[in-house]
C-alpha cells in the first residue's frame, strides 16, 4: 500500500534508519560524556588529525600529569625499615631466595663504607624508600629529571628509545619512560586492513582512554641493596615503576605515589612490590643533601 511515506517496506526501512541514526547520535553523545566523566578536559573524541598532532608532541608537552616540583617522603609504609637502619638478617617482607639470604647475611656496612660502596642502598630500586626530598623537573623535552637529596642522587627518565647497547651499569641504571594507560580502538577496517581516509591516509584508532600515568623501566643497574641492611639486588634486576599524582579533597594535599616492582631472578623468588608516597611542598625548604652513608637511614 502506497502512502505519502512510501510503500510499507520502504517506510519500515526509513523508520529503522531514523531510529538507528538517532541511536548513533545518542551513543556518540554518551561516549563524549563518558570521557568527560573520566576527568577529560575535552569532551569529544579527537578527530584523526588531532591524534596525529598529539603524536608529534614532545613527551614534555604531552604530559598528562605534572610531576614537577618538590616532594617530601611521607613514611607510612615499613617505617622501622626506613626511618632506622634495620637489623642484619631482617628481611621479613622481601621474597629472597636462598642465595639472596646468603648474601644478605654477609652485610657489613663498615666494609661497604670503606670500600667505596656506601651508595649501594641508594640505587634506583632502593632510593625512593630512603626518606628524603625529591626535585622533579624537565631536563629537556624528552628527559624528566629527579634530583634526590638523600645520597645526592639523580635519576634521568628517558622518553623514547631504549638503553644504548654499550650502557655501563650504574647505581641509577638506565631508565626508559613512557606515558601509559592509553588504549585505542581496533584500527582494522573489518577485513584485516588498516582504516584509511578518503585520501588513502592511515587513520589511527580513536583513543578510548588517554595516557594518564608515568611508567619507568630501569635496567643496567649496578648491584646494590633493596633495604639499608644489605638485602641484595643483582645486576640482572629490572625495576618497573608507576608514578601517579593526585589531590586529596579532604586534606587538600597533593600526593605522588610510586608503585615499584623489582624483578631479580638471581636473588628473588618472585617480584617484590614496594610502595612509597610523597607530599608536594611549595619549594626547596628543608632540602638536605647528604653523602651516601652505609649505616645511616638517609
Amino acid at each position, binding site marked *: 500500500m502506497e502512502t505519502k511515506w512510501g510503500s510499507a*517496506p520502504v517506510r519500515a*526501512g526509513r523508520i*529503522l*534508519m531514523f531510529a*538507528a541514526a538517532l*541511536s548513533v547520535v545518542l*551513543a556518540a553523545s*554518551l*561516549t563524549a560524556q563518558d*570521557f568527560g*566523566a*573520566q*576527568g577529560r578536559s575535552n569532551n569529544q573524541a579527537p578527530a584523526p588529525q588531532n591524534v596525529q598532532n598529539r603524536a608529534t608532541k614532545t613527551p614534555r608537552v604531552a604530559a*598528562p600529569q605534572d610531576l614537577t616540583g618538590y616532594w*617530601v*617522603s*611521607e*613514611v*607510612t*609504609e*615499613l*617505617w*622501622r*625499615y626506613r*626511618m*632506622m637502619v634495620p*637489623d642484619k638478617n*631482617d628481611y*621479613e*617482607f622481601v621474597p629472597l631466595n636462598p642465595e639472596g639470604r646468603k648474601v644478605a647475611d654477609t652485610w657489613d656496612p663498615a666494609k661497604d663504607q670503606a670500600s667505596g660502596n656506601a651508595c649501594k642502598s641508594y640505587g634506583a630500586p632502593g632510593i625512593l624508600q630512603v*626518606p628524603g*626530598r625529591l626535585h622533579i623537573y624537565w631536563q629537556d623535552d624528552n628527559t624528566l629529571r629527579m634530583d634526590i637529596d*638523600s645520597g645526592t642522587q639523580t635519576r634521568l627518565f628517558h622518553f623514547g628509545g631504549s638503553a644504548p647497547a654499550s650502557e655501563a651499569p650504574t647505581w641509577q641504571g638506565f631508565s626508559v619512560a613512557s606515558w601509559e*594507560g592509553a*588504549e585505542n*580502538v581496533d584500527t582494522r577496517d573489518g577485513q584485516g586492513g588498516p582504516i584509511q581516509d578518503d585520501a588513502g591516509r592511515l587513520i589511527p584508532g580513536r583513543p*578510548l*582512554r588517554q595516557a*594518564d600515568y608515568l*611508567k619507568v623501566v630501569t635496567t643496567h643497574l649496578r648491584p646494590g641493596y633493596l633495604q639499608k641492611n644489605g638485602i641484595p639486588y643483582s645486576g640482572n634486576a629490572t625495576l618497573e615503576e*608507576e608514578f*601517579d599524582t*593526585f589531590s*586529596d*579533597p*579532604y*586534606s587538600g*594535599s597533593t*600526593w605522588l*605515589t610510586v*608503585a615499584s*616492582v623489582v624483578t631479580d631472578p638471581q636473588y628473588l623468588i618472585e*617480584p617484590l*612490590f614496594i*610502595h612509597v*608516597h610523597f607530599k608536594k611542598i611549595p619549594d626547596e625548604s*628543608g632540602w*638536605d643533601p647528604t653523602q651516601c652513608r652505609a649505616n645511616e*637511614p*638517609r
Partner: protein
Amino acid sequence: MRSTKSNWKMKVPWFLLLLLVMLPGRMARAQADILGEWSPRVYNDGVDVGDYTGIPLNEAGRLRAETWHPDQIDLPENECRPHPIDVGLRVSVSQLRIIPELDPETQQQVGYRLHVAWQQPEQVIYTDGRPHPSPNAPHKWSGFSTGHWEGNTLVYTTDHLKEAYLTRTGVPRSSKSTVTTRIHRYGNYLNVTFIINDPAYLTGPYIREYSWVYAPDQVIAPFPCEIIPDGTILPAGSVPNFLPGKNDILYNFATEYGIPPEAALGGAETLSPDYIKKLKTMKVAPRTTTEHFKRAG
C-alpha cells in the same frame, strides 16, 4: 540500476542497526578492566602491640590504642567481626574479587562489588551518581561508597563506617572517618591506595597502598565463622583491657627493635625525613634481643 539502488537502501538500516548494537560494547571498554580475581602481594607490618609507627595518630587515638588488649580478639562479639575493606585488604592479606554490581531490576551495571576472602567483607562502590545517605543512616563495616573514573583509576569515597581498627593490634579508626580509595590496574597488577581521614583519631591523612596480581584461576573458599559461647575462652562478662598508663607490654616492640619508645607511638611528626635527626637524640631502652623479627611469619 534501480534494483541496485533499492538494495543499497535496504542494507543501510541494517548496517546502522549493527552499529547500534556494537557501540555500547565499545563504551564499556572505555574504562580499565579491574574485574576478576586478584592475589595479594601485601606486606603487613603493624602486627605488634605498641607498634603505631607510620600512623599520624593523635593523643586520643593513642590513648584508645594503649587500652587494647590482645585477648579482646577472643570476645564472642569479635570472633567473627570482619575488618572493613580499607583495613582488611592489608591486615588479613586476603584474596580479592571484583565483580560488577548490577541493578536487580534493570540488570544494568551501577557499580562494582569487592569481596575479600578473610571474613568475607564486601564493599559496593556505586558509580551511577547516587548521593550518599543522610548522616544519620546506619553505619556499616564497609560503609557506603560512591565513585567515578579518573582516566584509568576508579576513585571512590567511603563514609558511614563503623568504628574499627587501623592495625591488628588495636589502633582505632572512628566512625567519623572518610576513606578515599583509588584502584588502578596496570598490566596484570592492581594497585589500591587508601587515604584515611579521621578527625577523631588522626592529625592528618593516612595514606597506604597495596598491590595484587591478576589470578584468573584463583578460588576463594567460603569463610565459615562460628561464634564460641561467652565464657568458653575468657571468663564470661569480662573485657580484657589495659587501664590508661597500665599497659605493661606497650613498649616491648620499641625495646626489641631499638626504637625510642616515644617514636614507636606514631604521630604526624614521625612520618617526616626530618624526624630522623630527632630520633638520633632520643633515648633507646637497652635491647633484650636483636632477633625479634624471627617471631613473625
